[in-house]
């Protein structure tokens, strides 16, 4: 029995720690992969400490957790005392019930409900953007509060009610009785509540996702937004560091509790007694610890709040909103474009500028937030069809091209396209074509060439399909020769039939976005449709025995991502200066090399160093000779669809997913 329970405990801890061990090991991996260990390296730790955006996200997460835990602990303890002494039974049970709501409500509902309220309230008050650090903090305090209250309340109920009464009979004020008698008694519960609140706030993603605003992205959100590209291993390094920090803290706290320190304390007491001073009352000592503890917390909160407000005092702020992992960020010796811009600007204009660079996971995600006036940014980089939609809804400002002289380097092919026919609102950033990536060690060369490969039952269980409706339907529609922008619902039904067939026959292994990297690199999947540039990222990290190749089917998606200024922009000229900077040679080349996406900028694709760096194969794939670009683009690019049709497609997508 004893042995069985030991084995069981060991197995449980193995289960709990297995993923952490994986993270630890692969944080030292030379390659980007989380499945193939190619050699020991400290590279990702260096990357982590250089990655200012991630470090900022870590700081934000800590600031938030400290503030939320601090406020909710103080308010929750007070609330528990209040509830405990409440004499009206009905009021007490009503408050008990309300307290339970955030715990019984799934976090997605808490998040959505608060977002709805904040958006509504700010519309009422006429505020520019409804979501901010304050709303995020309010949301976190709200979901932490019940945990504190439910820790403290039972402790209060257990306590002998006559103790504070006795203190007051002996002349203590009610406040003094609480401070000297009750508080030390409930202190352990308060500390547990504080730790729980801190932990919950630190780990929360869902509620933050719905309630965070401009200028305050937390780590979980940053990680989630890496979903189009890939989660970078410096995150594993970060997890490993957090692990060791906690371990060290635990060891430290265990040490202070060990027999040695108890002996030490006994010795100190003896010394105190010998010097004639009375021994310290243990209760008083606890109060001292409690006070010291709360002082420390308050100090940290104050320092942290100061740090936050300090950054807000900078004279000029530029808020940039882009896809995750879509700018050269200084990793692996590349140029840190955001940082360089700030330095260049200060030198050029003699004024400092603070750039808040934040990320989104998809066009729709960005639109959902911007359209509700929930957030405000100065520069955004959406895709073509979303630009068309935003122009339609008056969400973009016309650009002043006098401030963007580098626009002259944008190729003529990228002017006057459907989404911005008069070239008033957008400056192309990158473009590409969707193609098919396959593992040549599994797939017969003879089967390649068209979209049929993704429906080929010979490769059942090895095909990776897009996990977003527009791109997934796109593959089926290009295959069948259907116009991807058709408003004819029966055509969309046909595409659904095709996707259902692909799924039911067992050809599809997974619906993926960023997971595609790991799966293709490790040989887990053999066939996938994805963006051309990303093929080269995978190629760099392919495992032994995997031979990735790439081709374009005849009909396929062309897309352009372009820089725009949304109507909520606070500093248009600064935004235009940033756009112009992004078009200048060095940053443009750095971005093109980092993302592996094709650049519409002549300064990039005509640059000999860039051409050499990319290599012949990459140049051929990224910049194919397509004859009339505008014609192909206007035929195959996604267009904006109306709301009813989008809703219909969404329901088709759900149908596919529940089968």
């Amino acid at each position: 029995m004893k042995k069985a329970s030991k084995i069981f405990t060991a197995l449980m801890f193995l289960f709990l720690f297995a993923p952490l061990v994986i993270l630890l090991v692969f944080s030292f991996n030379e390659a980007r992969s989380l499945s193939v260990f190619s050699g020991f390296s400290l590279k990702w730790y260096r990357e982590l400490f250089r990655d200012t955006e991630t470090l900022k996200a870590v700081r934000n997460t800590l600031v938030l957790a400290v503030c939320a835990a601090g406020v909710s602990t103080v308010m929750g303890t007070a609330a528990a005392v209040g509830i405990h002494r409440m004499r009206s039974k009905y009021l007490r049970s009503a408050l008990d019930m309300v307290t339970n709501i955030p715990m019984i409500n799934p976090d997605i509902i808490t998040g959505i409900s608060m977002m709805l309220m904040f958006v509504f309230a700010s519309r009422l008050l006429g505020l520019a953007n409804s979501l901010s650090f304050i709303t995020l903090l309010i949301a976190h305090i709200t979901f932490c509060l019940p945990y504190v209250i439910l820790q403290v309340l039972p402790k209060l109920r257990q306590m002998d009610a006559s103790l504070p009464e006795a203190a007051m009979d002996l002349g203590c004020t009610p406040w003094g009785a609480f401070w000297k008698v009750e508080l030390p008694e409930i202190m352990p519960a308060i500390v547990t509540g504080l730790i729980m609140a801190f932990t919950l706030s630190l780990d929360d993603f869902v509620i933050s996702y719905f309630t965070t605003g401009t200028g305050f992205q937390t780590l979980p959100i940053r990680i989630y937004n890496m979903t189009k590209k890939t989660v970078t291993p410096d995150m594993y390094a970060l997890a490993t560091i957090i692990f060791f920090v906690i371990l060290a803290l635990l060891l430290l706290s265990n040490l202070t509790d060990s027999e040695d320190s108890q002996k030490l304390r006994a010795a100190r007491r003896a010394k105190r007694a010998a010097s004639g001073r009375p021994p310290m009352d243990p209760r008083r000592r606890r109060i001292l610890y409690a006070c010291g503890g709360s002082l420390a917390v308050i100090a940290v909160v104050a320092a942290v709040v100061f740090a936050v407000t300090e950054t807000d005092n900078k004279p000029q702020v530029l808020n940039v909103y882009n896809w995750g992992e879509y700018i050269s960020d200084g990793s692996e010796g590349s140029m840190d474009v955001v940082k360089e811009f700030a330095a260049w600007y200060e030198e050029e204009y003699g004024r400092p500028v603070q750039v808040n660079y934040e990320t989104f996971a998809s066009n729709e995600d960005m639109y959902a937030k911007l359209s509700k006036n929930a957030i405000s940014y100065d520069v955004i980089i959406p895709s073509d069809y979303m630009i068309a939609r935003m122009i339609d809804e008056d969400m973009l400002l016309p650009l002043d091209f006098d401030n963007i002289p580098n626009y002259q380097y944008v190729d003529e092919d990228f002017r006057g396209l459907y989404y911005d026919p008069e070239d008033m609102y957008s400056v192309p950033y990158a473009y590409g074509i969707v193609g098919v990536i396959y593992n040549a060690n599994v797939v017969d060369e003879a089967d390649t060439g068209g979209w049929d490969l993704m429906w080929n039952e010979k490769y059942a269980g090895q095909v990776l399909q897009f996990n977003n409706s527009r791109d997934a339907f796109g593959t089926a529609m290009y295959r069948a020769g259907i116009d991807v922008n058709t408003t004819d619902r029966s055509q969309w039904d046909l595409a659904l039939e095709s996707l259902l067939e692909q799924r039911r026959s067992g050809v599809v292994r997974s619906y993926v976005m960023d997971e595609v990297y790991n799966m293709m690199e490790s040989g887990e999947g053999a066939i996938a449709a994805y963006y051309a540039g990303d093929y080269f990222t995978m190629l760099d990290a392919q495992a032994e025995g995997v031979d990735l190749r790439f081709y374009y089917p005849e009909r396929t998606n062309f897309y352009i991502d372009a820089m725009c200024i949304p109507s909520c922009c606070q500093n248009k000229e600064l935004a235009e200066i940033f756009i112009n900077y992004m078009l200048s040679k060095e940053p443009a080349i750095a971005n093109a090399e980092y993302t592996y996406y094709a650049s519409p900028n002549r300064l990039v694709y005509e640059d000999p160093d860039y051409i050499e760096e990319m290599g012949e194969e990459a140049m051929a794939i990224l910049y194919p000779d397509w004859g009339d670009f505008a014609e192909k683009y206007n035929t195959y690019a996604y267009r904006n669809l109306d709301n009813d049709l989008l809703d219909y497609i969404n329901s088709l997508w759900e149908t596919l997913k529940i089968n």
Partner: protein
Amino acid sequence: MTKKKTRSSLVTGLAGGPYEVWAVLFILVPLAFVAYYAFTDNDFRFTTANIVRFFTDTSPAAGGEGTMVRTYLVISWRSIKLAVISTAVCLLLGYPLAYIISRSSPRAQKTMMTLIMIPMWMNFLIRTYAWMTILQDTGILNNLLAKLGLGRIHIIGTETAVIIGMVYDYLPYMILPIYSIMAKMDFKLIEAARDLGCAPAGVLRRVILPLSMPGVVNGITMVLIPSISTFYISQKLGDGMFFLLGDAIEGQYVANNLHFAAAIAFILMVALLAAMAAMRYFTDRHTYGGQ
């Protein structure tokens, strides 16, 4: 005596005040907004169409030609099924572990409880990502099985993988409340039952289980709620093959269908509140002394 009472109630009023205001403003009002959005259309006119849509939307079924199923009921059913299984597994694993821990030395108790908390400090998105690489076909688990000559198994993308992910992420939420009750449990009662000739199974059923019931109820609540509404775990470990209630709400939010997203949230909320109220009512009557 009376004077003292008034003084202490003044303190009480001051202490509970901020929270009462907070609770109304940030717990009750947002819920009212969910209801408001759920019962209005895009122009904020009253409608029940969103609620009706949840129960009536249909899509073609996998089986035969022409058969239709109710989309959101199918999604709900799958969510409930996975959440209930995960909760049961958490209970089956967490309960004995909490018991074992509560019977160890105080030092070991402290160490083991902190060990259980540690994974919660790692970001859960990253933890889930790590599970993906453990479970995939060319992953660590399968490589290990192959080396041991046991053959490979396909887990990733199955309901099993999603359940493993949920159990992993939410197990501490089951262990913590059960342990905190068990640690306070008077073990003399167990000894007494044994001395009086009770068999081990009887001790468990008649003494330990009833005493720890409040912890079990809390644990079940804390695991069931997040697992019924998760969307990240199902996306990553389910290979995007499943669509759960959380995915549906998030999908509608991203598609800018706020009113329908609110309707799904509203229905889920009402169902959960009802289920929890029923569970508390039931267990309060069947535990000794209740709460």
